[in-house]
């Protein structure tokens, strides 16, 4: 089976969906690149090369470069989604949601409800999230709790290439607006990705490690660190369920509750700022619905209440480290 990076898996999936369905179009800044200049046409393919090569096959009518006008073109994509296209629109860094939040929050998310169920809005908004690249306070945030909290949106956060493919297929074919969040530090991670088509349903978590001593819930790049910690503990005979939520809207509550009902102990690891994070949300779900199974305080491991610092020495401790996760797990085991 071919080994692919997440970048490649996304690129391949976009290509195959564009071949399958002529209403799928890609929209964004520099998704092709090279417009209005003397160089080659496929000059960029997205700032991290994720859409590279698509303009060559599908042309500028379906791989649409835009001016730097996020509110305008995200709104345009939302309008197009209601009127016959299935746009996959790229917001580049998800931090840029600040300039187009209305289009996401007040428009695409609410159409169906406000219109009494009379429209579908099949749009995928792709964007990069996360710290780790020294991109500082305006290019490094984890804003998934914000969008996960908005009724009408679905929010996907793959942690590996296999899931990226299956979730992206589901996202493109879904009739609701989907926010598809790619962690920048994961683009070059790879795993086996089958060539065949497979769709991963939303709201279905994956158990990346299994064990009954403690439950660790996470998503996106943090899953890798949780696995690392789980493996280390396993060597000591302590076994953890590591639950990769994969989608943070919908949330697979069942998987979390079932695991906690067995383990009685829960640590949630989220790269977002702690307050009102997915860590808070999962904790509150369990404190309400599996309270009597709990044998220890629920621990949240998240980013602190500060902007993302630039300096490597600070960014490295800003993002939850394996050491912090391990400490939280051990403390929870002992509590």
């Amino acid at each position, binding site marked *: 089976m071919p080994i692919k990076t997440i970048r490649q898996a996304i690129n391949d999936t976009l290509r195959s969906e564009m071949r399958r369905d002529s209403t799928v179009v890609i929209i964004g800044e520099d998704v092709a690149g090279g417009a209005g200049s003397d160089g080659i046409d496929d000059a960029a393919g997205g700032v991290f090369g994720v859409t590279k090569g698509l303009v060559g096959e599908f042309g500028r009518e*379906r791989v649409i470069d835009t001016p730097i006008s996020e509110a305008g073109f995200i*709104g345009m994509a939302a*309008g197009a989604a*209601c*009127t016959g296209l299935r746009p996959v629109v790229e917001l580049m860094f998800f931090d840029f949601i600040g300039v187009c939040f209305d289009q996401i929050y007040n*428009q695409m998310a609410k159409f169906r409800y406000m*219109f*009494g*169920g009379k429209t579908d809005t099949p749009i995928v908004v792709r964007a990069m999230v996360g710290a780790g690249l020294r991109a500082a306070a305006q290019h490094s945030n984890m804003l998934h709790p914000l969008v996960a909290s908005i009724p009408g949106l679905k929010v996907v956060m793959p942690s590996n290439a296999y899931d990226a493919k299956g979730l992206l297929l589901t996202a493109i074919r879904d009739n609701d607006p989907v926010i598809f969040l790619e962690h920048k530090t994961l683009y070059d991670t790879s795993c086996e990705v089958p060539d065949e088509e497979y769709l991963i349903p939303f709201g279905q978590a994956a158990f990346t490690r299994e064990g009954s001593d403690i439950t660790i819930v996470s998503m996106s790049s943090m899953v890798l660190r949780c696995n690392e910690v789980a493996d280390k503990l396993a060597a000591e005979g302590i076994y953890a369920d590591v639950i990769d939520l994969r989608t943070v809207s919908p949330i697979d509550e069942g998987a979390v509750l079932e695991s906690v009902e067995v383990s009685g102990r829960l640590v949630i690891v989220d790269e977002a700022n702690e307050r009102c994070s997915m860590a808070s949300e999962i904790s509150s779900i369990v404190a309400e619905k599996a309270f009597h199974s709990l044998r220890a305080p629920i621990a949240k491991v998240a980013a602190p209440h500060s902007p993302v610092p630039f300096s490597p020495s600070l960014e490295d401790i800003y993002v939850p480290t394996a050491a912090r996760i391990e400490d939280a797990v051990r403390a929870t085991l002992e509590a």
Partner: protein
Amino acid sequence: MALQETQILEAYRTMRTIREFEERVTAEFEKGGIPGFVHVYDGQEAVATGACMHLTKDDYVGSTHRGHGHCIAKGCDIKGMMAEIMGRATGLCRGKGGSMHIADIDQGMLGANAIVGGAPPLAIGAALSAKTLGTKNLSLSFTGDGGSNQGTVFESMNLAVVLQLPTIFMYENNGYGEHTGAAYAVGCGDIAGRAEAFGMPALRVDGLDFFAVYEAMQEAVDRARSGGGPTAIEASAVRFNGHFIGDPQLYRGEGELDRLRRDSDCLKIFSKRVIGDKLLKKSQLNAIDREVAVLIDSAVEEGFAAPFPAESELLTDVYSNY
């Protein structure tokens, strides 16, 4: 291009329907029968009507908070609209949207929009669909003088020019955005000129004159359908009411409203013109007036008789699947 008698009758019917609809909404609101914030359109009928008469139901319209007139001109069901504004289960949006969110995608109505500047991005999206799918359809967005200062509107104009989209930006300049004059808020004082500088033809019309609006739209529509890209139109207009129903309108000058209602009533201007030019007879207009009155009466009556949405509706229509 001269309008047929049936079309002129149709135009009058639309304008009269809007007028009657808005006057009844105002009356029922004041009596307490309609909840929420309601912005009525009466006074501006000639703009919506002159603009939308060119469109089929496969062309899309993006509207504003003051959207009833656009909806009616675009062909939305009157009874469904009235029920919607009343919050009833039989409303066009099953009572979930209300006055500021009436929409009917099947009629090409992308929705009133309670966010000022919300519609133009959506409308250019519909134009992108038309262009990409190779239909000859187009889109039309309405924006007020106040809304013309919103960033989304400027961005949309640039995008429409860059992508050469079949779309029309209709600016209805009724002189006010809420309680603030356009003379203050539009720094350059020239909405059409500003639009032109974005790289598209811009037309200025008297929005009290249905025929002038219709003609300007003809040019814009022809351009859009033939692949010539976007057009902006600035229509001068008057608002016969406050910003919302209940606004004391302290910003108006002495006697302004009386003057407007007397001298700047697009329906009176229309009637005078079509009768004077012998295009229609007074009796034809009167007949329409009566029919419209009956229609609105029954819309109000049926609206009040309709049930409110059941509790079980609260969580439906959030997703197509979840």
